[in-house]
């Protein structure tokens, strides 16, 4: 019980952090919008995403996933910052649950993601984004992105606790996130890639999630439900591995 209330306090603290530090706010609002606008207008002409789907309808689920992953990097960066500033030491000297600091961080980042997803959907709507499978299906899609980001936050948390230096964590973040974002169906159909890359692109989690969200918002994706189930499996699997790993690293902080 007290662990949950501890976590709630840390969530509150981190939400304030995410919204009060100007550069973090810009990062979670203006930057994703710029990505959305750039990719829509730069690639929109070139990529006719197959059938009757307009590029913005194709792109937005991808941008949501991209934002989720870029946002996840910040989980590790934030932890490394707190570690260096002594905030973590203060919290560790208090009689609180060991997982509260980590869960408080990943959950606060989920709050930020809900904010960003809402923002992107509103901006996307002005660019012509529409969902065609009903409100509930759309909300499920958004929720899937939130959970996906939450799972990746735990990976990032482990990276943050291992590398400890905020800038190193940032750079390392791009190393593991960029291939996942770009070698996927986020921006272009996987079928346009060389066959060796397709093997990776088709089977990695980002493609699964993006396809699932396309199915949930646009329909017309063959075997759509399969993508949803595989995405959920990835999410559960990642959390099952990385959450305990993060708590273990946290306990061993020197």
């Amino acid at each position, binding site marked *: 019980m007290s662990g949950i209330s501890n976590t709630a306090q840390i969530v509150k*603290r981190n939400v304030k*952090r995410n919204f009060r530090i100007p550069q973090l706010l810009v990062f979670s609002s203006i930057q994703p919008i710029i990505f959305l606008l750039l990719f829509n207008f730069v690639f929109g002409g070139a990529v006719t995403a197959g059938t009757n789907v307009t590029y913005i309808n194709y792109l937005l689920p991808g941008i949501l996933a991209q934002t989720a992953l870029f946002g996840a990097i910040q989980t590790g960066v934030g932890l490394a910052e707190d570690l260096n500033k002594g*905030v973590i030491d*203060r919290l*560790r*000297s*208090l009689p609180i649950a060991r997982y509260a600091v980590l869960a408080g961080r990943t959950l606060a980042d989920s709050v930020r993601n809900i904010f960003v997803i809402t923002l992107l959907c509103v901006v996307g709507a002005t660019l012509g984004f529409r969902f065609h499978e009903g409100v509930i299906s759309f909300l499920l899609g958004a929720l899937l992105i939130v959970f996906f980001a939450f799972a990746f936050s735990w990976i990032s948390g482990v990276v943050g606790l291992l590398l400890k230096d905020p800038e190193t964590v940032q750079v390392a973040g791009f190393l593991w996130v960029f291939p996942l974002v770009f070698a996927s169906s986020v921006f272009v159909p996987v079928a346009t890639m060389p066959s060796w890359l397709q093997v990776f692109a088709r089977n990695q989690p980002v493609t699964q999630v993006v396809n699932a969200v396309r199915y949930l918002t646009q329909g017309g994706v063959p075997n759509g439900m399969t993508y949803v189930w595989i995405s959920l499996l990835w999410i559960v699997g990642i959390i099952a591995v990385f959450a305990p790993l993060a708590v273990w690293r946290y306990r061993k902080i020197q």
Partner: protein
Amino acid sequence: MSKNNSIVVKSVVKKFGKFTALDDVSLLAQSGKVTGLLGPNGAGKSTLIKVMTTLLVPEHGTVMVDGVDVVHKPALARERIGLAGQSAAVDAFLTGRETLVMVGRLYGMKAKVAKARADELLEKLGLTEAADRQTKTYSGGMRRRLDLGASLVATPKVLFLDEPTTGLDPRTRLQLWDIIRDLVAQGVTILLTTQYLEEADALCDYIYVIDKGKMIIEGTSEDLKGSLGQDIIELKVADSHIVATQKLLKKLMNQDPKVDTATRRLSIHTKSGADDLLKVAESMKKSKINVEELSLHRPTLDDVFLAVTDDTEGAKS
């Protein structure tokens, strides 16, 4: 004996890889008193604080704080201690009030209780007016006071202050000293680290000096000064005369003088202060060495510190 000691550290060893940060360190802190931990940068002060506050687990040794085994029952120990100073930090983006309320809530206080406690501490620390400003607008002294406040939320019996006044101006330092003295008057046991000997002299009932991970000397401020036993003759000469003066003093007093080339000061111990002072003055005059300053003084804690700590650059903590 240990009944009166709120902190009992016995034979603690802490290593980081091959580097031994704490090498068989023992310490006792008497209940309701201020115990000082002095030492140069990298001596192991912060590491020892972290061991005593459950942040680091030692390889060997035992640590008891307020009767609780810190190494084996860290959760229980955390309920009894407060930590402030360079090992802990306050968030720049939270207000002073938010910081204290959050800490109170983390200790399991109800919202109302945490708020009341925050108000009380803000008042006590003179931060009421700044309470609703983000701490990034605070001065260094205000931030230290808030940091101290955060460590006091749960009214700990044992308080650890890691260099609580480092980097503060003299007036703010004195304010913090007053707060610390108030706490002692209320019966709190305090262990503080400092690089300021003057601070240890003013605040601490008992002092430990640590260097390169080893305890090298302990005692009251008076004990430590007395341990040097003798008065000190100090001279300041021109750069070009340092070596000559050194030789002369050695011959005259039968001991190696301590030389600080940076300040061009040489010091030497004496048993018969005034006589030796005259002797030195005469012989300097004879050798035509121009003495810029010449003094005889009781040892200060600085002298103790310089005498017992190694002046070669220590490893970084």
